[in-house]
Structure formats: structure tokens, C-alpha cells
């Protein structure tokens, strides 16, 4: 439940940092920040996805 707020918060904060770094003229830093935030969120989603697939396998496919 709180993970949803976490992801939304990460998205908003990353957008803020991105715009601040852009204003300061550090374009490449801004892009790196976006990529790192994306990887963190992707990791959370993929972990939950693997949990879901494991559940489906144990319940439906008898493995």
C-alpha cells in the first residue's frame, strides 16, 4: 500500500530535481538522476511482479 505512495513520491521528487538541475545548467546530471530514479522504481515493480508470478504458479499451475 505505502509502496504506491513511495513510487508517486519518487516520481514527483525526481521531476523536481530534474527541473532544478536543468535550471542550473547541468543537463547530463539531470538525465542521470532520471535514469537512476527509473531504475529504482523499476526494481520495485519487477520484484512485486516476480512475487505475483510465483503466486500464480503455485496456485494455478501446481508447481
Amino acid at each position, binding site marked *: 500500500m505505502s509502496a504506491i505512495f513511495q513510487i508517486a513520491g519518487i*516520481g514527483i521528487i*525526481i521531476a523536481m530535481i530534474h527541473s532544478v538541475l536543468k535550471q542550473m545548467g547541468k543537463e547530463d546530471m539531470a538525465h542521470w538522476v532520471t535514469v537512476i530514479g527509473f531504475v529504482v522504481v523499476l526494481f520495485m515493480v519487477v520484484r512485486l511482479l516476480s512475487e*505475483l508470478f510465483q*503466486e500464480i504458479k503455485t496456485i494455478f499451475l501446481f508447481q
Partner: protein
Amino acid sequence: MEMISIVGLGLIATVLILVVREQKPMFAFLLAAFTGIFIFLYVIGRIEAIITVLEDLANRSGVPSIYLKTILKIIGIAYIAEFGAQIVRDAGQESIASKIEFAGKVFILVMAIPIISVIIETVIGLLPAGGQP
């Protein structure tokens, strides 16, 4: 009430997605996927209870367990295929979504082949000139 909490979760997630999509559409997509997975995990515990009851019924009535296993596998494939196709469709890739659905249909048909062959053999056995040409 769990239903109310699910609906509230969906509404809150939708508002958050709308807020985040303004700046970063990638995060909005990941958030949508996460919400879908979360609701699915929430519901799957209940599905387990239903399936336990179904297994019990099948055991009592003497239905061969291979049929129930096949049907459960088909249901699982349908759930996964629908889920993946909807997430991909949300991201705007209509063609990949329809390919996922197509793959799901093919796998379901492959799973159903033993049952179909049993039905066909039964029908052939019922026909008068079935065994001896």
C-alpha cells in the same frame, strides 16, 4: 470492508498517476503496473480458497484430477495473459497487447487438446460403426 479499500486504492493511485504523468510519463506507467499487480496479489488469496473448494468437490465426485488441473492451468494462463495485455495496452502498444492475447489463446488451445481428444474418442465410440469399419 475490503472492497472499499480496493476502490479507494484505485482512486488514489489514479490521482497520483495523473499528477505524475504531467512530468514523467515513465513513472506513471510503472505506477499503473504496480497498482495492478498489488490489487491482483490482494485478490489471489481469495481465489486460492475458491480453488480449494473446487478441488474438494472434484475429489468427492470422482472426476479425474487431470481435468481439473487442465482447467485451472487454463484459468491461470487466461489471467496472466489478460493482465499483461492490459498493462501493455495502457502503455499504448496496442499491437504487442494483441500478440500477447494471441499467444494466450494458442497456449489455452494447446492445454485443451487432451480434453478435446477425449471428447472426440467418446463421440467416435458412440457412433454405431465406430470401432469396426
